[in-house]
């Protein structure tokens, strides 16, 4: 039991549970299965993007371009679907486009060694421009019904978006914690020099991470397009990077890299989604929503920090 509390995810899990209880007490509708399903559906886009963001943050980087990548992919997929292409084929093409965007980031970051924040700040602008250019500034909308599969369809009784997010989270959770590739991500984030000496290729690993991040974002984009039903390239996904980064960091990851888990991130995403849903449900004044969200965020960060410093205090040989 004591070990559970030492885990890095402990505070965020605990905090999520407490908040869950508070919302349940305030609003009777919160605990309804429908609503819980709703929360899960709503977090799928941010959730999928946060998986890639977690890996990027594990490297000590940050990706500001995810919102723009989402816009590019959603626009492309939407236009393909409207051009009569099978939604699944369109989604696959979308993933290729996402991978190309990721590769573009990865190229500048891993090969040309330009810091992540600078590269992605630039590509945030560039991809957004490309997305609008592709769309011609018009709404991409009126998708055929078959495209609804990605938002309303079910796989063995589970809504598709939730199934996709769960698959992504479990898959990458496994990769990160159990495979050589995943441990490389942690190792490089923990100590880049040591990783090089141990013969790991930082470039290759980083490049792969950005490609996977691009692909995960494109899956999110497909769900987004199907859920929302109409895409406006200039605003689709704009600002989502902050929500995603906040979710990953609230989930216990460190901006300096090397620290963070899929479990923590999933809870971070869940927490963010719960706040958004809960604040509407508790019928709080609309003007209070942002302030309360920010306050809860800071509270979560404080709790994380307290736990981290307590862990450090128990460091071996504190008498030196």
């Amino acid at each position, binding site marked *: 039991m004591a070990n559970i509390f030492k885990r890095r995810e402990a505070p965020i899990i605990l905090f999520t549970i407490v908040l869950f209880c508070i919302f349940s007490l305030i609003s009777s509708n919160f605990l309804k299965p429908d609503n819980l399903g709703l929360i899960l559906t709503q977090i799928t886009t941010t959730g999928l993007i946060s998986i890639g963001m977690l890996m990027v943050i594990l490297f000590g980087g940050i990706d500001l371009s995810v919102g723009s990548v989402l816009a590019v992919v959603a626009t492309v997929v939407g236009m393909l679907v409207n051009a009569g292409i099978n939604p699944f084929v369109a989604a696959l093409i979308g993933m290729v486009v996402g991978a190309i965007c990721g590769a573009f980031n990865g190229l500048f970051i891993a090969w040309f060694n330009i810091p992540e924040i600078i590269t992605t*700040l*630039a590509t945030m602008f*560039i991809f957004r421009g490309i997305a*609008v250019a592709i769309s011609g*500034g018009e709404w991409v909308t009126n998708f055929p019904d078959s495209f609804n599969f990605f938002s309303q369809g079910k796989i063995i009784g589970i809504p598709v978006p939730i199934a996709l997010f769960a698959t992504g989270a479990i898959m990458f959770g496994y990769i990160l914690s159990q495979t050589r590739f995943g441990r490389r991500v942690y190792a490089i984030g923990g100590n880049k020099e040591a990783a090089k000496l141990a013969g790991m290729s930082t470039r290759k690993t980083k490049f792969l991470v950005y490609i996977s991040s691009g692909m995960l974002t494109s899956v999110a984009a497909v769900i987004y397009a199907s859920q929302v039903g109409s895409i406006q390239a200039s605003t689709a996904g704009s600002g989502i990077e902050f929500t995603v980064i906040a979710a990953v960091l609230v989930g216990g990851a460190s*901006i300096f890299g090397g620290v963070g888990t899929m479990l923590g991130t999933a809870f971070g995403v869940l927490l963010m989604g719960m706040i958004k849903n809960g604040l509407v449900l508790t019928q709080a004044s609309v003007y209070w*929503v942002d*302030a309360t969200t*920010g306050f809860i965020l800071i509270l979560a960060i404080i709790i994380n920090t307290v736990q981290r410093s307590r862990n450090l205090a128990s460091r071996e040989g504190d008498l030196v």
Partner: protein
Amino acid sequence: MNLVKEEVNTRLKRLPSIKINTISILVILLAGLLIFFSTQSPYFLTTLNITNVLVQVTTIGLIAIPMTYVIISGAMDLSVGSILGLSAVTLGFLYESGTNIWVSVVLALVVGALAGALNGLLIARYKMQAIVVTIGTLVMLRGLVYIITKGKPISGYPDSFYFLGQGKVLGIPFSVIVMMALFSIAYILIKKTRIGRYTYALGNNEEAVRYSGINVVKVRFLTFVMSGLFAGIAAIFYVSRYASAQASAGDGIELDVITAVLIGGTHIFGGRGSLVGTFLGVLIIGTLRNGLNLMGVSVLFQTVILGVLILVAVSRQNK
């Protein structure tokens, strides 16, 4: 003896000249833009237009000053836009509820500084990660703005107040004079005083500064208070110039500011950078926007051009 080191020596001795290069590259870039735009638009190189550009960059310029300090010291402040909004509506709210305009101005500055102090407290004193904390305050303070205004812009200020953002002294807009003056003061502070030394040292090796008996917490705290205060100053000029305190004031400005600072050659990981560079970075962004506007280039292409500029201009910042 020390053959290898000497070799490294000769390579690294060029460090100072690299620094000069950064500035000269920026100057050449700015000059290139000026020449290009003046060939493209007859209205570009007019006194009126140049004044315009300078007035337009005051908001970004004012906030870029402390941002340079914050980034050099190895941190980051994403909440400046929200602080600007908060100070702006505080000013409007206080004046609307009967407070003297100048008292309101002072109190708005205090609110800005206090918001910065909140960041500083969490980041400097409690060692929380700057990006995380300021994303949190970004959301929270913007929320506060909406609570105060309920979304309605607050306008109708006395004429004397409009002088700040719209008045001129000897033909030069007052806000531009203030920005230049603050840039100069900040330049002297960072170049010639111990505050500047501490800021650079903090960005390079915080531990060593602490072990030198310097109150690291205080220095870092001050950079964030300064950041809040300057966002407050920017807010005053914003309200005065636009005659209105709107809830969305300053939304998203942090990216513009950080872009300007980075283009100015300040190193994203701290320890290196200069205010001259930041000033040039601000001017480059302002000139680019203005020139492209005059040419009637759509903002969509403008953002793409800005993106490419960042990628190319800042790519020298290898890790």
